[in-house]
């Protein structure tokens, strides 16, 4: 875990010196399992800043929601840094207006897995290297940290922020890209009927609360396709056509833009798995165009970088 004091010191400095107007980070929530995104506007508020493995949101989501001119400091992990880069590529924010406090990420913990293991009465969660020390009503329990990570975090390739203005803590070892590839290929190896059955089973739990959309930093459209009235692009209700259409198109709109942070899946109140969809698109972008979203703040995603050379790519 990166040193919390070092993060606070840096955040204080940014605010005190007027480098930024606001620092976006986390603060403690009502329970230890739910830290909240928080906006610090003065140095003396920064003592409330926290950072741990349960901070489950992608803070880059808030980048498009603060006033466009404001200078923003942000605590970023690898995925958040990539999201920021992707947003800069799409001209949603000037990189010069940002100050990124980078923290290498050991993976985000799934509070539901923890609660499923130790029960509801979690009083505190201490992270200690590879272990988790959980205090409940019944006493202390020592758990293996890796078992309680979100699936998308287990597959993470770049845990380190690549373009942070300051890195706090030691850079971690890069993840194994084969894990993501294997995940996609294992899914692809199933029969087409099984794949559809899986997709159907996941999609039909959808209640269309759009938490996945709202949690996603790349879903910043003023008007989403599902809200469009004339023409109405998809069925509006929680019907099979509506639910499947939503999941297909939401994911597809992320092609070449999704940074595999998994915030959509973590936000879903119905535990719908959806990173397997965007993972496939990311996989294809890597294989076909050698592109990974958010690795730098300049490269346009494949769909925005069409050239006539493409004629060699596709068979006539």
């Amino acid at each position, binding site marked *: 875990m990166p040193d919390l004091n070092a993060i606070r010191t840096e955040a204080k400095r940014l605010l005190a010196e007027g480098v930024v107007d606001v620092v976006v980070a986390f603060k403690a929530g009502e329970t230890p399992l739910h830290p909240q995104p928080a906006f610090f506007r003065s140095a003396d508020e920064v003592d409330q800043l926290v950072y741990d493995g349960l901070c489950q949101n992608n803070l880059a989501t808030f980048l498009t929601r603060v006033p466009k001119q404001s200078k923003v400091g942000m605590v970023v992990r690898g995925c958040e840094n990539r999201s920021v880069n992707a947003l800069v590529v799409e001209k949603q924010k000037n990189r010069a207006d940002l100050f990124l406090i980078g923290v290498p990420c050991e993976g985000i913990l799934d509070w539901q897995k923890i609660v499923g293991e130790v029960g509801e009465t979690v009083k505190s969660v201490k992270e200690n290297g590879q272990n988790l020390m959980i205090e409940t009503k019944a006493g202390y329990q020592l758990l293996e940290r890796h078992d309680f990570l979100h699936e998308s975090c287990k597959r993470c390739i770049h845990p380190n922020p690549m373009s942070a203005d300051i890195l706090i803590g030691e850079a971690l070892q890069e993840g194994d890209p084969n894990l993501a590839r294997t995940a996609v290929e294992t899914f*692809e190896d199933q029969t087409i009927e099984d794949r*559809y059955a899986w997709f159907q089973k996941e999609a039909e739990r959808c209640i269309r609360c759009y938490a996945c959309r709202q949690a996603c930093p790349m879903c910043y459209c003023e008007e989403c396709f599902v809200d469009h009235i004339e023409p109405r692009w998809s*069925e509006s209700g929680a019907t099979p056509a509506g639910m*499947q259409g939503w999941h297909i198109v939401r994911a*597809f709109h992320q092609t070449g833009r999704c940074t595999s942070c998994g915030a959509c899946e973590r936000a879903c109140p119905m535990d719908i798995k959806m990173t397997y969809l965007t993972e496939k698109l990311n996989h294809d972008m890597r294989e076909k165009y050698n592109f990974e979203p958010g690795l730098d703040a300049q490269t346009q995603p494949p769909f925005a970088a069409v050239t006539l050379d493409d004629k060699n790519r*596709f068979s006539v």
Partner: protein
Amino acid sequence: MPEKPKIALFQCRWCLYAPADQEWVDTQLPENIHLTKTPCTGRINPLYVLNAVQGGADGVMISGCLPEQCHFKTGNMAARRQLEEFNDFLDYIGYDKQRVRFVWLDLQDRGIIQKQLAAFEQELDDLGPASNLVTRVKVAEGGQNA
């Protein structure tokens, strides 16, 4: 007699078929083929394709201009990038890849579109009617979704 496969045909209005072919497409298309003309294949939103698929199309054919002959320079290329990926993606979740076909045509390709459609129809016949992702059917009585 079994029903013929339903095909959604998207045609770029700039892609110049030979006049006789174009007339055939415009006026004599068999009933199982539904034609949508777009200003360019680049204008084909993946949502159009999804709409066709959800609405029960057994196959989707997208017919555009040859490379370097797009009226909008790279519209057909952009479409290929997007729609080919969309096709792969639909395949990933259960709509067979072979049900989507791209055709690039030119003025000189006389009689090709008919042949392509016939061949596609034959292949779709072999595949059987599509059922995966075909969800926009008449809603069941009650429509309960509790």
